[in-house]
């Protein structure tokens, strides 16, 4: 579904990613783990067009989207729930969710039943239902994370990119976020998950990549990565 080949990207002259390749098969949950500054968020930003890759190929459903504008990439079915959630603070919760379906509502993507999807998602995140008419800027961090995910799902995406969905959340909310990700996985949503909680990410994922200084240092089925001594020592903590 999503295939990244030899991606080089960064900010101006500073290159963060050096020939990175990864593959996200249809219906699978792939996770990208690594320490702070390894280039996890940069990878997602380059894939969704928020930054322009310097070279390499990004294939989405057989089409090279490298270098396209982010709004065009979104219209092809790539949803990205970005780092820091980035909800629209002066719009209501409902409007935020609705804007996730912008390409569907404006004819750039097949429409389907927007209303039904809206109701389904707002049921999936009950806290959002209670706060539908509130401004998104007044939500707590956890609620904003739920909102960012609901908004991304309104696209009916071919691929969903999730950037640090657990960041800054209380442990109980982190559990809730991962429970939601499991539900999406059960519903066969194709996902690329970037996480600092490597253990939790590998627990829920099918396949994992370890990113080190802008390069993939190891990869494999999530189960085997979890038992890899090097990965355990570096990312899962000695206690595991």
């Amino acid at each position: 579904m999503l295939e990244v080949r030899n991606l080089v990207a960064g900010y101006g002259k500073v290159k963060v990613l050096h020939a990175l390749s990864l593959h996200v098969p249809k219906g699978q949950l792939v996770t990208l783990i690594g320490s702070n500054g390894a280039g996890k968020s940069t990878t997602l930003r380059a894939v969704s067009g928020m930054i322009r890759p310097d070279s390499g190929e990004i294939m989405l459903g057989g089409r090279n989207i490298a270098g396209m504008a982010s709004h065009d990439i979104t219209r092809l079915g790539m949803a990205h729930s970005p780092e820091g959630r980035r909800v629209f603070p002066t719009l209501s919760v409902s409007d935020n969710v609705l804007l996730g379906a912008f390409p569907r509502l404006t004819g750039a993507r097949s429409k389907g039943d927007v209303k039904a999807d809206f109701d389904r998602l707002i049921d999936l995140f009950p806290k959002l239902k209670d706060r539908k008419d509130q401004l998104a800027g007044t939500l707590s961090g956890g609620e904003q994370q739920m909102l960012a995910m609901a908004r991304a799902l309104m696209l009916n995406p071919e691929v969903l990119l999730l950037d640090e969905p657990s960041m800054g959340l209380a442990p109980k909310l982190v559990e809730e976020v991962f429970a939601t990700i499991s539900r999406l996985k059960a519903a066969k949503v194709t996902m690329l998950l970037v996480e600092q909680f490597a253990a939790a990410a590998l627990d829920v994922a099918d396949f994992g990549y370890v990113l080190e200084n802008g390069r993939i240092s190891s990869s494999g089925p999530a189960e085997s990565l979890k038992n890899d001594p090097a990965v355990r020592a570096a990312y899962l903590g000695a206690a595991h």
Partner: protein
Amino acid sequence: MQNFMQILVSGISVGMIYGVIAFGYQLTFATSKTLNFGQGEALTLGALVGFSTVTFLIALGLPPLAAYILALPIVLAFGLLQGAVVERFGVRQAIKTKSEAGWIMATIALGIIFKNMAENVWGKDPLKFPSPLSEAPLTIGGVNLRPMEIAIVLGALAMMLAVEAFNRRSIYGKAVVATSNDRDAAGLMGINTPLVITFSYALSSLSAALAGVLIAPITLTGANMGAALGLKAFAVAIIGGLSSGLGVVVGGLILGITESLTGFYFDTGYKDVPGLLLLLLVLSFKPAGLFGKSAIKKV
């Protein structure tokens, strides 16, 4: 007292004009954090295109009011186009390269070019815009109200309410608000944010063009009419806050009324002083403007 009321009335109509132009400044600032310093010239061109269209239609035998109403959509469409041109040629490149000041020079330069064009096409002498409404004032409670002054207030409010309704109700309007909130995140929603910015420039010039045809019948119309208005509306945008629709209306009224009062009770030569003093005070004590709100941001 009657004098006072009379002055208040004329202050209000001029204030609403300032408000509409300032509203235009807000539109582009919201989406792109840039301003069109050629707003005054956009107003001039709107008034002059209106002048030519109305004169032409009257020559065809239409009564002035019908000519004016028919000319409005032409003026507004011209405003949209002119604003889009300013954005494409003056602002887009500066935004792309994240230039801090490029757009300032570019929009000023385009303003000067537009003004020169206006001087060449319409001449340097002021023209008399045919008034669509009776110029005989209505007397209400001893206060003389020119019908055009009422039309200015209504037209200005209608314009601002229409934009507000568009932003609140339609999905495209919400996309504009989303772009104002967070351009990158709006792009991730599939919103073509460069196009939204072009649109906001188009709408901004449309506001100025509307202000131009609204004020033209009660003032002299010509290539130089917009410069001072554009500058004062800029002060209004700062006083009211670049993010508050209510702010520009209130700011416009404050400036319009203080100008008229100073001109009458003190000296017309000083009529600009109180408003500009207010501007300096606001900049010192409340830099976000009287109604400016700092964005709600939670990380």
